[in-house]
């Protein structure tokens, strides 16, 4: 099988065509007739880390030593030198141990697989260990631009990361999750950082549906919201109940597990706000994409988390529309149902470390 990788191999910018590649890879896994795969990235003009990472994990599975059926893997690197270096340093060939490039202008957080481990009193869990490593890595990224995370910053981020990994473990079919990241220096004290965290498992909206069958305090609110969108005929091909549930799960204080644990449910909201605040550069905004099942949500600073008052309580909300109201449909460019299905949940972050911006932020006058 020859896999022609699209010119724009990106979950952020070309999600559906990129997911076509994954579908073909999964098909190959399940098809005994496929003996060879040729992975052709020759014509790629853009490759993002999340696309490359998911492909790497799927190809690794095909190439796994435990598999009875062996598949011969080969391919072409991108012609573009810069992209080739990214693939060699943090992509498919690195994970398959075909290449081992560690460029000086890149800081790598090698792709790693984490797994839910049983908690014991004296042994740290994989989630704790990898959260710590990721925080240290993010600090190293800042260090490379002569900034650093204070202890409070590390504590704040570790809470967020641990919660995202907690969700990944909770919704995972395989109890595994993957993290990959790199920082590429782009100039004097500036860098572009990509971070991807994903699992294969139940989409967020399926977990949220479980809430609807419980006595969760969320139940009434979700039901009212669905009725509102249904009666006003807001639902369409790209905006349905599953998308609404996923969007709802992002709001502060909401979690598919809220019925048993009110402390959960702020991690993603916090992480989005963190990157929206510090991850800007002079001319670029950070981008975060969440893909869960067939739902695609893109955060790119056009819409931001804002405090709303709900029954006298203040909480943060992002509705992706000009009124920032969950009663109205979101901007279909940012929140939509897609034609492909990702069997799990993927978080992709692309943000910047820009000394000038950070200095302005520190002095209380951030650029907008």
């Amino acid at each position: 099988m020859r896999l022609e990788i699209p010119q724009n191999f990106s979950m952020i910018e070309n999600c559906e065509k990129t997911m076509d590649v994954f579908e073909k890879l999964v098909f190959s896994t399940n098809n005994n007739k496929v003996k060879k795969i040729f992975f052709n990235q020759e014509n790629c003009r853009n490759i993002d880390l999340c696309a490359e990472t998911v492909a790497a994990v799927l190809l690794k599975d095909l190439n796994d030593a435990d598999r009875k059926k062996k598949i011969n893997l080969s391919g072409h690197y991108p012609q573009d030198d810069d992209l080739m270096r990214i693939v060699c340093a943090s992509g498919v060939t690195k994970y398959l141990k075909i290449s081992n490039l560690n460029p000086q202008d890149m800081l790598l957080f090698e792709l790693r697989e984490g797994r839910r481990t049983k908690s014991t009193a004296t042994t740290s869990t994989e989630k704790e260990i990898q959260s710590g490593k990721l925080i240290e890595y993010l600090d190293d990224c800042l260090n490379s631009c002569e900034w650093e995370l204070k202890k409070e910053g590390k504590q704040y981020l570790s809470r967020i990361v641990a919660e995202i990994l907690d969700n990944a473990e909770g919704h995972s079919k395989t109890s595994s999750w993957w993290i990959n990241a790199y920082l590429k220096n782009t100039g004097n004290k500036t860098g572009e950082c990509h971070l991807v965290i994903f699992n294969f498992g139940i989409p967020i909206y399926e977990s949220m549906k479980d809430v609807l069958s419980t006595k969760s305090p969320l139940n009434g609110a979700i039901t009212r919201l669905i009725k509102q969108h249904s009666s006003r005929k807001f639902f369409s091909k790209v905006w349905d109940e599953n998308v609404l549930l996923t969007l709802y799960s992002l709001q502060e204080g909401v979690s598919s597990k809220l019925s048993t644990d009110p402390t959960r449910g702020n991690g993603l909201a916090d992480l989005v706000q963190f990157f929206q605040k510090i991850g800007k550069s002079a001319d670029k905004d950070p981008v975060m994409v969440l893909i869960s099942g067939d739902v695609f949500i893109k955060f790119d600073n056009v819409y931001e988390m804002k405090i709303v008052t709900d029954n006298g309580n203040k909480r943060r909300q992002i509705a992706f529309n000009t009124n920032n109201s969950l009663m109205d449909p979101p901007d279909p460019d940012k929140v939509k149902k897609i034609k492909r299905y990702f069997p799990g949940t993927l978080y992709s972050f692309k943000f910047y470390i820009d000394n000038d911006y950070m200095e302005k932020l520190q002095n209380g006058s951030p650029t907008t």
Partner: protein
Amino acid sequence: MDHQPLNINLDLYRTAKSPVFAGRDRGIEVKKKITLERLNSASEISFSIPDDVYALNSSFLLGLLGETIKFHKKNGLDSSQIIKVPDEFKSTFEETIREAQQDDCLL
């Protein structure tokens, strides 16, 4: 009830020099190891926290101390006077007390 002070050395409850303590299940396992009886009867609970630890998440603290905080409340005791947490983790601990007292279903 021995009403003795109790010091929890977190270095004994981690591996790989992990700087992060997170997860309710982990907190519950540490509680089991120490025993709820000792936690509830201690006149003071303090922590020895290695310098390289920067995250003591509220989920972990809730697993470890949630029941004790509820026990204190039931017996008219002030958890913030009995449980001494280093200043840098104070806000997380205050959050833990709030959360533990908020909802019975937590425990």
